[in-house]
């Protein structure tokens, strides 16, 4: 499929260009923030001598542009640099955080995606009847409440009052998979509630759209049951928009969990990023920003490619 290859290469090239632009944007953004890294490291206890010493050591006296290109050059060799604040290698400290974030996102997706699609199908099956309305009402309510509030509510009732799940979702290498899963039960629940409505509504709308088609009527006349029609005939044809919205939400599970991570003290990328933004640790912020951007662009690319593969008309353009 040379056409498909060409398309793929095109998409990836565009993605990389976008990443480059994003890196410049983040660099510019972090540089116009008030205060500098030396001041933030020492906090209120900074003396002018100590400040000058730190600035000199971190190379903050060099012009911004040369710092940016130095960093970009390192990146081309796969070197994310070292954190200005702690002097640790960014790639290694970021790696374990990214692993944790992906772990949380993975389990949230494992719960949320099948559940959303199933609820969407169910809503179509009982369209305009009470199950449909109930599903819509609950999912829309949960997406409307800010996620930190859902977090606090679950924490209070399930964690503190009932004691069913830990309120601090600390995971570390010494834990078994079972312990880790029990530890992240609450954040997974919150994330599921946050992303459920979007995916469920999209599934419902996409399938309903297809349900108007003539071939669905044929299937009905063949005497198939409603659920078989939806599952066998309607769902495959509405897969493109569903995959799109699923990918968007998966991206959200990775890049949008900052608040949930802070509320549940989860050692993921979100907290790592927040800590470094407040200390003006530009290389780390940029590395995090780039990874988030890469995840976002990557997942959207996957969505594009899947929808092309799923649609013969897009696969063979005239």
């Amino acid at each position, binding site marked *: 499929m040379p056409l498909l290859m060409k398309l793929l290469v095109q998409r990836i090239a565009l993605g990389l260009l976008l990443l480059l632009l994003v890196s410049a944007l983040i660099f510019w953004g972090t540089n116009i923030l008030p*205060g500098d890294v030396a001041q*933030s490291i*020492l906090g209120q206890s900074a003396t002018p*001598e100590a400040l000058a010493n730190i600035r000199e050591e971190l190379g903050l006296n060099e012009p911004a542009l040369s710092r940016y290109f130095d960093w970009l050059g390192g990146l081309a060799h796969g070197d994310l640099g070292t954190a200005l604040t*702690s002097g640790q290698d960014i790639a290694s400290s970021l790696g374990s955080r990214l692993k944790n974030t992906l772990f949380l996102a993975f389990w949230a997706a494992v719960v949320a995606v099948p559940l959303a699609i199933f609820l969407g199908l169910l809503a179509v099956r009982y369209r305009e009847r009470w199950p449909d309305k109930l599903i819509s009402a609950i999912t829309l309510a949960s997406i409307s409440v800010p996620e930190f509030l859902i977090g606090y509510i679950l*924490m209070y009732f399930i964690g503190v009052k009932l004691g069913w799940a830990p309120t601090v979702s600390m995971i570390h290498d010494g834990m078994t998979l079972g312990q880790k899963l029990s530890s992240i039960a609450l954040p997974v629940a919150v994330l599921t509630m946050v992303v459920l409505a979007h995916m469920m509504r999209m599934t419902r709308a996409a399938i309903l759209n297809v349900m108007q088609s003539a071939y669905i009527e044929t299937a009905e006349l063949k005497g198939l049951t409603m659920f078989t029609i939806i599952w066998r005939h309607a769902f495959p044809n509405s897969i493109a928009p569903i995959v799109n919205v699923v990918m968007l939400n998966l991206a959200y599970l990775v890049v949008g969990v900052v608040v949930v991570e802070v*509320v549940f003290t989860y050692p993921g990328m979100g907290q*790592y990023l927040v800590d470094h933004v407040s200390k003006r640790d530009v290389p780390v912020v940029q590395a995090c920003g780039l990874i988030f951007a890469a995840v976002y662009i990557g997942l959207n690319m996957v969505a594009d490619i899947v929808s092309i593969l799923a649609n013969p008309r897009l696969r063979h353009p005239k």
Partner: protein
Amino acid sequence: MSKELEYLSKQFVARKLSRRHFMGRAAALGLTAAGASTMLSSAVYAQGPVKGGTIRVGLPGGSTTDSLDPATTTNSTGTMISRLWGEPLVELAPEGGLENRLAEEVSASPDAKVWTFKIRSGISFSNGQPLTADDVLATMERHAGEDTKSGALGIMRGITAMRVEGDKFIVELDTPNADLPYLMTDYHLLIQPNGGKDDPAAAIGTGPYILKEADMGVRFVAEKNPNYWGDMGHADTIEVVVINDDTARMAAIQSGQVDMVGRVPPRTAQLVARAPNINVHSTPGPGHYVFIAHCNTAPFDNNDLRMALKYGINREEMVEKILFGYGSIGNDTPINSSYPLFTEMEQRSYDPEKAKFHFDKSGHEGPILLRTSDNSFPGAPDASALFQQSLSKAGINLEIKREPNDGYWSEVWNAQPFCTSYWSGRPTQDQMYSTAYLSTADWNDTRFFNEQFDQMLLAARGELDEAKRTQIYADMGMLLHNEGGLICPMFNDFIDGTTNRVAGWVENHKGFDLMNFYAPMKMWVVG
């Protein structure tokens, strides 16, 4: 009745009686819940420390960007962690004053210019290396060096020479300083092998615990140092978890995931204390929340205007509404009774008429601009609004400008003429005044330039006669009270929480919160 209670508490300690039963029967004997609870903890205390188990601590302040190098410690998590593995020469005693740690004996020359610290012998670092006076010297050199990043650099400045004689570490000063040993309690100045010059972040020291796992800003695990020389450290393991979100930290102690937490928010402290298994401790300290005006910038360069602001603030209301009662009123000096050599002076109180009189006399017209932010102290914007209301009764118009948290300490504090801020206090009056009120101080955040004050500070520093020093400090406090740019409405208490799983809390421990961060090392697990 007391016999019966005594019997009951013994039963409890022997685990023959549940806490609920004890409280119930104590109530039947006419004891209030609080009284019964105190009685219980003292019974447990009397039984003495229990060895073993794990103490879990939930702390705010830690960040992924922290380092284990004690020179760069800035927050409460870092302070507690370094106290697990390291020790200073001397430390604040729980009831005030000093106690010796790695120094066995401290002595001064009669002019207080030469100080000698005799180093305890027979102590080893956790890597097996024996502690020597040379390690102490190397440590101090690292913090005092020209190219140091140490937060203790400021307090090392007055030192002109340091040397070792046998097992003695000797410090020479350019001017006499009777408080030098207090400076050595600084949380940065922990003794490391060869001063930490080889590997500053190795976390190797002489402390009661050995750090086993360290995930910055996330989680720390330390195990008992089997060779520790002192009597601290009852639990086998201490686990410190960083929980910066207030609500999450309170939920963690309420659900029993941690045994103690620092910085309970005053707003919810009463609610947290209502839980039967949680004790909330309020400890008065030197920390204070302030409104600071630059004495050299118009319109604040006019002392009448400053007096108007001082008379126009309702201190009791602030303690009640901002601190929810967990604190005490201030008197426009940074010093309170938690400092040694403190002298009480007449309390200034809210008086709109005097405020109006001084304001009119100052000749200033128009509004006064106050800058504030959420992180300048908890509740700062609310306190500013209260200040605005109390001033308006005196006919003074205060305009409030909200600044972003981000960059507040570099852009607003110590830069703008009038803003909200906080000070966590210092162990001695000399240190507090030298840090922020001496003309030449880097953080003279009220731009208070007063020659007489500076002279008195230096005179007090070299004065070894306590009565004379106390008098000088009282005069300095009065000067600041009447002429300074500091408007200090309140001193905030430290509020900490512990569960019934741990015992051994010491009330009114001097220093920082959580018993000067020694709580996990001085408390023990009861079950």
